[in-house]
């Protein structure tokens, strides 16, 4: 499955490329639809430093895909490629191709703003805006051109219900979002994300700042959300990946002895049950059984 071993395929010719990670026959060769994302030899560089090396993977519609791996393996970096969040880091550069429903996300014509409208993101630490709960939800629709008050009321209620937060906050929509608990804030951030009706939600360790009860609520919520959205979640919690995800990508770190730099690599990508019960790669096995990382 190593990218280096793969026969060289002309880049950009998408039809020629089949799943290069499909080393295991247990993975569905033909998913129900075209993959939502397809990454081919995707690398991320910060200046000259290569943070993530040549990953190939496909993300499927209405599934939850988990990225796991030790810290520093670049799983968050890869996630941030999917909605061009890495554009905000001046030195970051992406090599290889990453397509979204067949469109190259890094095509010079593509606007990061348009991409992020369709591909939402939930962050590690809850980051509600210093505004009211209502205005937090309304922010996205407002910048996307909604003007009518009744529409806002509707969206706010629908989104909060969607994020299983409505009953807790319906009486104080006009109070500051910063007054909510950490778990509520994170669900508010999810509600804020689904308010713009994205197709994909990226979650970057969404539960790492939360207690177990709040975590369980978010995990339940994810199962509901996957009927409407495609979800990618980065987590350092293997149990969480095993509980919630349909597919799991295991990233690891490769240390370059010459320059003493660390580069993230995608080791294995497969159905979650396969990754956790019968992984192909020894490194995955060591990681999921707790012998490493």
């Amino acid at each position: 499955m190593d990218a280096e071993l793969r026969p060289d395929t002309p880049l950009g010719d998408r039809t020629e490329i089949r799943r290069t990670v499909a080393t295991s026959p247990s993975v569905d060769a033909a998913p129900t639809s075209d993959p939502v994302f397809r990454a081919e030899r995707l690398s991320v560089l910060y200046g000259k430093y290569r943070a993530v090396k040549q990953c190939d993977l496909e993300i499927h519609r209405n599934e939850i895909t988990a990225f796991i791996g030790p810290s520093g393996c670049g799983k968050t970096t890869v996630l941030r490629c999917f909605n061009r969040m890495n554009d905000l880091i001046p030195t970051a550069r992406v090599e290889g191709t990453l397509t979204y429903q067949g469109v190259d996300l890094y095509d010079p014509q593509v606007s990061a703003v348009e991409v992020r409208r369709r591909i939402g993101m939930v962050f590690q630490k809850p980051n509600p805006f210093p505004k009211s709960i209502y205005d937090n939800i309304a922010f996205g629709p407002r910048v996307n051109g909604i003007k009518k008050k009744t529409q806002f009321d509707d969206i706010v209620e629908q989104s909060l219900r969607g994020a299983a937060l409505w009953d807790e906050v319906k009486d104080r929509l006009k109070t500051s979002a910063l007054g909510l608990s950490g778990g509520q804030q994170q669900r508010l951030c999810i509600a804020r994300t689904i308010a713009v009706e994205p197709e994909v939600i990226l979650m970057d360790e969404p539960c790492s700042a939360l207690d177990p009860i709040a975590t369980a609520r978010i995990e339940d919520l994810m199962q509901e959300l996957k009927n409407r959205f495609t979800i990618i979640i980065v987590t350092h919690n293997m149990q969480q990946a095993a509980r919630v995800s349909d597919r799991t990508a295991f990233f690891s770190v490769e240390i370059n002895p010459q320059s003493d730099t660390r580069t993230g690599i995608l080791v294995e990508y497969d159905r979650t049950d396969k990754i956790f019960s019968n992984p192909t790669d020894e490194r995955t096995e060591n990681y999921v059984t707790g012998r490493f990382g």
Partner: protein
Amino acid sequence: MNTNPDFRTPEFSARGRRADSLFRYATIAAGAIVLLVLGAVAFTTTKRAWPALDSMGLDFFTSDRWAPNEKFFGARSFIYGSLVASTIAVVLAIPVSIGIALFTTQVVPARWRRPIVYLVDLLAVVPSVVFGLWGILVFAKHVDGFYGFLHDVLGPIPVVGDLFGEGSGRGYMTAGIILAIMITPIITSLAREVIDTCPPADREGAYALGATRWEMIRGTVLPYSKGGLVGAVMLGLGRAMGETIAVALVIGSTANISANLFASGDALPARIANEWGEAEGTWRAALIGLAVTLFAVTILVNLAATAVVNRSLAKSQGTR
């Protein structure tokens, strides 16, 4: 051999301890000087101004007649002039300062930040009297025509037109513009500091919802730093009101109350600087009275501004 540690080292001898506490008291005294000076300024100036304040009563603040020969001192036109000139200054400086602060923190790459910061800070190095010199000998002469143009264009508009009457290069507007140049670096540096406290996670949150840069700024950066920005502007206002020499040179030195922004007027500190040389007796007391008024106003503005800025900075450090 004595194995117990010997605590009677020279460092902790009686003399050493005395030196230690002496140093401590010296630092406390140095800190106390700040309070002493502020208190003494308030007390001595008020006492010296009392003959004038006492004889004039409330007329000192409410009358606009300033007639030293008749020992009649009404400061209203100077208070008015100070307010008008510093309001013009703040109105002009706000968009520019916040624009620069946003540009350096949100737009340009990090390596461009420092050069821009240095450039703006250079303005703060130019002494106010040099701005005044440039204002009276160069700016005031060249801006005359422009004021005339504005008067021709805006003058006929009802109500608003009153603001743009006939005038000269020496007046409220020129003073306001020069003050705006002078307070821009102050507001900019504070605004930059306040805006910098906005957590990157908040900005990313807005971007992740598909916001453009300006929507991100309006949605997260500005609401987050609102309090601090208000404080920064108030500090700028305080500076503008206290600024003496540049205003004394360009405001026109006329006791006048007029809605016309191009008219000549006078400001509290400018009147003091211009009349001090010839004044004596009650006249001087009255000029010190102007200083007391100025002191009171600037202290109040500064107290409020400092409190607002501190609270805003503390809030951002406390919550996350």
